[in-house]
């Protein structure tokens, strides 16, 4: 008789603990995180100084550990005191209360409240440090780009690598419009509109940039009617090279030297809003009947066509949605960094975003969030190693792909218990309603 490892008492107790954690509502975790952020805001700097860390550890102190290993105890203590303890205590204490509160909320209010809470949490957390603010905005942009890429690569099953090209078009179009409209620039002369209007106009400019990107994506979308797979991959690859070469030859916007002077309009609220809005739109897209049609085209194009799916419309919608949101991501990127050049958007950036996508998992909204978070986390933690970072990240990604070839969350979603219960309730109601008729 053998005892399998998974049923040892320790494992079982761990699993029951984890199960208990799963039952803690998301709102309680957010409250705990809010407490942690407040603590860091008020006593973080003092504590960090007392522990000999100098300043508050930017990304959970991991890069600090790698750089100065003797600080490990201090960093751990800081993490436990500022993050771990408040999070655990608050989540535990508020779980019952939050659960009772939740039950009274409608699904829409529930989601809205959580988003507002998440917004203030992230904003407060990242405002403590300029570096954090930059990283969190870049993360949001990467999430937007990854999610948009997931529509074509995941839901439609193509292998598109043109995301860097789309970002480049969006970045250049939005930068040129903003600088022409609102900045006193050497190239475009005095601003056309009063510069105070810049933040108001930025969303409009982003939409224009996204639309122009989507229009340029027709170069990829139209060939996709006749070809699939590897040949389409090469067309998207050619698109990246063409875009890069095109902007390198546009001398009046800097050519290979790049283009700068973008007004500072992409603060955290702006980036957060666009990311959430983009994810929401794309979520509606992929869960709609059109999303199902996209999946059908992926699984069997001929069969989809026979089921009266207009495959051309599906393909063009998928590519244009991808391009639009990648263009918006590029526009945000240009205004977060404040400088772009054609080399920023070379094939390497596509490879990065592909890495995030396949790490997170295809055909999954959760995956599109998880992949960039993990990738960016790794990349920021390993930043002190500079060059060696690009030796470690590929190894980790290769290992991850070998262990989980479909990515961490490929073809599955994270189920939030509350929303899940609501969904089941709704469907049961529908069933009963149908039976009543």
């Amino acid at each position: 008789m053998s005892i399998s490892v998974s049923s040892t008492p320790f494992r079982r107790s761990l699993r029951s603990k984890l199960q208990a954690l799963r039952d803690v509502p998301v709102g309680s975790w957010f409250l705990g995180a809010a407490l942690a952020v407040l603590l860091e805001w008020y006593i973080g700097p003092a504590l960090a100084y007392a522990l000999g860390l100098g300043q508050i550890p930017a990304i959970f102190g991991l890069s600090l550990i790698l750089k100065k290993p003797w600080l490990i105890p201090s960093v751990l203590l800081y993490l436990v005191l500022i993050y771990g303890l408040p999070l655990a205590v608050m989540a535990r204490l508020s779980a019952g209360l939050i659960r009772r509160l939740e039950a009274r909320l409608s699904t829409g209010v529930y989601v809205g409240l959580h988003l507002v809470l998440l917004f203030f949490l992230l904003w407060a957390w990242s405002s403590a440090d300029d570096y954090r603010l930059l990283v969190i905005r870049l993360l949001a942009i990467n999430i937007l780009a990854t999610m948009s890429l997931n529509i074509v690569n995941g839901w439609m099953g193509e292998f598109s690598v043109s995301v860097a090209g789309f970002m480049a078009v969006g970045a250049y179009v939005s930068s040129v419009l903003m600088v022409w409209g609102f900045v006193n620039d050497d190239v475009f002369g005095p601003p056309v509109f009063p510069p105070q209007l810049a933040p108001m106009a930025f969303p409009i400019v982003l939409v224009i940039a996204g639309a122009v990107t989507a229009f340029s994506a027709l170069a990829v979308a139209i060939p996709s009617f006749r070809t699939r797979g590897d040949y389409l991959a090469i067309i998207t690859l050619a698109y990246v090279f063409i875009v890069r070469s095109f902007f390198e030859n546009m001398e009046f916007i800097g050519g290979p030297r790049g283009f700068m002077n973008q007004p500072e309009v992409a603060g955290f609220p702006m980036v957060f809003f666009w990311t959430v809005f983009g994810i929401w739109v794309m979520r509606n897209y992929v869960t709609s009947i059109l999303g199902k049609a996209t999946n059908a085209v992926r699984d069997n194009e001929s069969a989809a066509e026979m089921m009266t799916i207009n495959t051309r419309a599906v393909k063009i919608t998928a590519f244009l949605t991808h391009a639009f949101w990648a263009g918006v991501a590029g526009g945000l990127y240009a205004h977060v960094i404040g400088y772009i050049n054609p080399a920023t958007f070379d094939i390497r950036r596509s490879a990065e975003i592909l890495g995030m996508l396949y790490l997170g998992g295809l055909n999954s909204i959760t995956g599109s969030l998880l992949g960039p978070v993990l990738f960016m986390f790794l990349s920021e933690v390993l930043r002190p190693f500079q060059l060696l970072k690009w030796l470690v990240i590929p190894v980790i990604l290769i290992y991850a792909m070998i262990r989980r070839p479909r990515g961490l969350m490929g073809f599955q979603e994270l189920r939030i218990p509350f929303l899940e219960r609501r969904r089941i309730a709704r469907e049961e109601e529908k069933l009963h309603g149908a039976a009543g008729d």
Partner: protein
Amino acid sequence: MSQIAQQVFNALQLGSFYALIALGYSMVYSILMLFNFAHGDVFMVATYIGYFVAVGLLGLVAASMLPLPSWALFVLTLVLTMFLASFVGILVELVAYRPLRDAPRASAAITGLMVGIFMETGVLALLGASRKDFPALIPPQTFQLGPIYVTNLKILTLGMTLLLLVLLYLLIHHTKLGMAMRAMSFDYAVVPLLGIPMNTVISFTFALGSALAGAAGILYGMSYPVLDPYMGVIIGWKAFVAAILGGRGSIFGAVVGGFMLGAIEILVAATMPSTMRDLIAYSIVLLILTFRPYGLFGEEYSARLRL
């Protein structure tokens, strides 16, 4: 007239590099149905190997421990580099593709890309950012053929490429391993049932492609003697485009695609500002693929390809 003939030679030279590298993409594709995205960086590593072999051999000659004429030195360098480079390809397959053979192909593409980035960074970290100058193995000479001037390097590149292509043809059509490769590209599923060692054949295919990339590396290094760790990105992706242009998995197509891309690039460079080269070249590729979506020699439905 002489201008045109001159440019034809340039195009043939550039096309030779593309063709040799594109073969690596196509052969792997015809067997495994996946593109080895690390192949450009295999070419880069192979070129560096060639550099060290050449420097080492030249050092031996200078110390008069190896009394060889320059042509023998060149051949020795070429053979040694091709031999060593083939191990790079075998290693890439072992690390990036073998564990993922049953996984979705896109996952294998990601591991390939990552292995490529790893190799670029590895070379950069090991050798530093300073560029290496490839030593001149053969003293440069210029011949005059009627009105045109041709360097011996161009003739050597073209001749070597043709020789390698002939050898490759003989290998694929007149040896047992070549027969196994053709069998695998014909029907991947049945071949292991016939007792053909699948992994050996796949490794051999990778080795063959990398050896050709090694030869391309030596010839490239002699013609453009500045090496840097990112050279594989530019040349490799272009060779990839050439392989697709010819039709995926078709050896003949890869060669034609390589020479065609070389011709397009030289034509653009000769008639327009050189910064427009990539723009026009890739636009032409895009147009060709829009009207012939399966490449020049590819077939629409039979993804299994002819070696």
